[in-house]
């Protein structure tokens, strides 16, 4: 019988983290190139906080990606980057469950629950 070991989980987690970072940074880079091409000579001002622009909300992002807007593509990469460690936690939960380590499956699910609470906490602007 194949027994799943900690080292197997470690290998999978390492792969998830590496792939997530490379993929998301690649997307950010692509979006950045388009953004600079289209807006490179615009004048910026980040002195004051300007609220939430349309291209970072979900509908806006999807629309933006379809219309090839650089900032929407960057934001898509950033969301993937934020998701990477969260996906890592989800993989750990599965790994601990397969190992039949129920104490740690519970601990891992609790961490996911806290992140979910943070996401849905109603602190969006």
């Amino acid at each position: 019988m194949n027994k799943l070991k900690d080292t197997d989980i470690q290998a999978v987690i390492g792969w998830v983290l590496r792939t997530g970072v490379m993929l998301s940074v690649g997307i950010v880079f692509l979006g950045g190139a388009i953004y600079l091409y289209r807006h490179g000579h615009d004048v910026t001002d980040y002195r004051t906080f300007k609220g939430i622009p349309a291209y970072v909300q979900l509908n806006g992002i999807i629309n933006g990606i379809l219309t090839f807007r650089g900032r929407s593509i960057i934001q898509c990469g950033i969301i993937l980057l934020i998701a990477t460690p969260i996906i890592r936690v989800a993989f750990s939960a599965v790994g601990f469950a397969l190992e039949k380590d129920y104490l740690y499956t519970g601990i891992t699910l609790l961490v996911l629950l806290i992140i979910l609470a943070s996401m849905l906490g109603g602190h969006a602007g």
Partner: protein
Amino acid sequence: MSVIELTIIILIGSYFAGLLGSLTGLGGGFIIIPLLTLALHVNIHYAIGASLISVIATSSGSAAAYVKEGITNMRLGMFLEIATTAGAMAGAIAAIYTPTQYIAILFGLILITSALMSLHKKTVQLTKHKSYLAQKLKFNSSYPSAEGPVEYNVINVAGGFFAMLFAGVISGLLGIGSGALKVVAMDGIMRIPFKVSTTTSNFMIGVTAAASAVVYLQRGYIDPGLSMPVVIGVLLGAVTGSKILVQSSSSKWIRIIFAIVVSVVAVQMIYNGILGKI
């Protein structure tokens, strides 16, 4: 300033931030935030948002390498992540309602503390004492070394947990990895060997930052135009840093110079915070 000029300046600055952050172990956020706010007059909320994203990138990238080596204590990290993510969520919510000048002052104070702590010589004695909680939670482990596996025990679980809660709040409030605080909690309080505490802290930083980044993202504090050069720059810098083999003698000098630079920056952050310019 035009978008392309700003992007190039931030890209170069972030590269050096990532390089220094990886050489000293303090992380890139310590330089990114002052660079954006003091030098480029970016709103501190945007600066923190961009820094958080770069923290996730570097921590996840290097964690991938460490996890494979088998030094990271994944159970310990997972358990302490309960504290750091809960703290980070609280910190991110607090950041929304805290006036920016207080954030700047607090940032300066934490910056000085971390710089001083990074100079502190680390000598951790392995403890033979077996704590009941640590045994129940299966923390006691071993790590590979040149002389074969080194066994270690973990003590003072509750104390470490509360210190991590604090580290999480700071991370969520200021957008830094607060790796220095995490390492202190693990070395000083829980008596974990330095190699294990640094890699495990790094392993936790990504999740901690993600827990507050989801709040920042929804508030619109994470601006793609700023985050793009910051993430790319810091990541490239960190990769360069990990390729440079630092000898222990020169590493001490790097730390001292870095501590001085960081203290000067910290004083400026506090000064501008008090004047309400940030």
